[in-house]
């Protein structure tokens, strides 16, 4: 009887461990910070891309309008791919704020001259601090901020057709 209980418990434990590890194997093991609820836009400080003046986010973002904060760099290939979508978003009367991440100013300027400037304001983030204060971890990354200054969507990676339509739905 005792032996039977031992065998049953061992079997159940084995099945339990098998299921846990099997499910674990199916999950991607690379963590990406997801946005599961709306969060207040953190305060951040940066320098104006053109004038070099210090800019505080509170003075920059006005209430009652949607903002798209896009982190980009001239050396980032996917940024080039998503640029046409940003230009299209600019035509939708949206406020686009660009954060130029760890870039060389002249390279960034030629990038904008070549592909167009969709941003109403660009901050320069030379050491990556502004991006971390925002909660970003790479380029390109895009945040959709609603009228209450809350981040309602975070797009990690380049904007594609599907994400572009998602953004349009969100700002309706």
């Amino acid at each position, binding site marked *: 009887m005792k032996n039977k209980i031992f065998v049953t418990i061992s079997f159940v434990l084995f099945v339990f461990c098998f299921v846990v590890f099997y499910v674990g194997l199916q999950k991607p*093991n*690379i*963590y*990406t*910070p*997801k946005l599961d609820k709306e*969060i207040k836009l*953190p305060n951040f400080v940066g320098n104006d891309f053109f004038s070099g003046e210090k800019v505080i986010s509170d003075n920059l973002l006005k209430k009652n309008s949607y903002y798209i904060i896009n982190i980009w760099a001239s050396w980032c290939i996917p940024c080039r791919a998503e640029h046409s979508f940003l230009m299209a978003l600019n035509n939708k009367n949206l406020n686009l704020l660009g954060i130029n991440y*760890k870039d060389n100013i002249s390279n960034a300027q030629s990038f904008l001259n070549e592909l167009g400037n969709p941003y109403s304001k660009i901050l320069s983030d030379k*050491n*990556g*601090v502004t*991006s*971390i*204060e*925002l*909660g970003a*971890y*790479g380029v390109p990354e895009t945040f959709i901020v609603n009228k209450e200054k809350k981040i309602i969507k975070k797009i990690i990676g380049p904007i594609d057709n599907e994400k572009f339509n998602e953004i349009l739905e969100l700002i309706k």
Partner: protein
Amino acid sequence: MKKLIFFITFFIILSNNYLLAVDKPTELENKIFKNLRCLICQGQSIYDSQSDFAESMKIVVRKNLETGMSEKDIYQFMKKNYGEWVLYNPEINKGTYLLWSLPIILFVIGGAIIIRKLSVFKK
């Protein structure tokens, strides 16, 4: 030979200057760096990692300490921005309850089994 001595002396002076110029992290900074996970080289703390992201995180930690934030405040700040996963030492809450209690439960069960076995042997 003279040239060699000149180059060695020049090299020593240069490297010393470099080492003196680099800001050495304080004990508290190192403690915080070791408890924050680098999201680029996952599995490494920002203390171990030399990725661009980790270097920027270190600057933010230093900047926050300078503005008077405590160690706990910095963990809260990082958790708010990147989720619980960024911390190597997660706090006890609903999601980590099992994680924290499982070693204790296993220890108690294991201890009970050993004591029982020992008492059987004694008999």
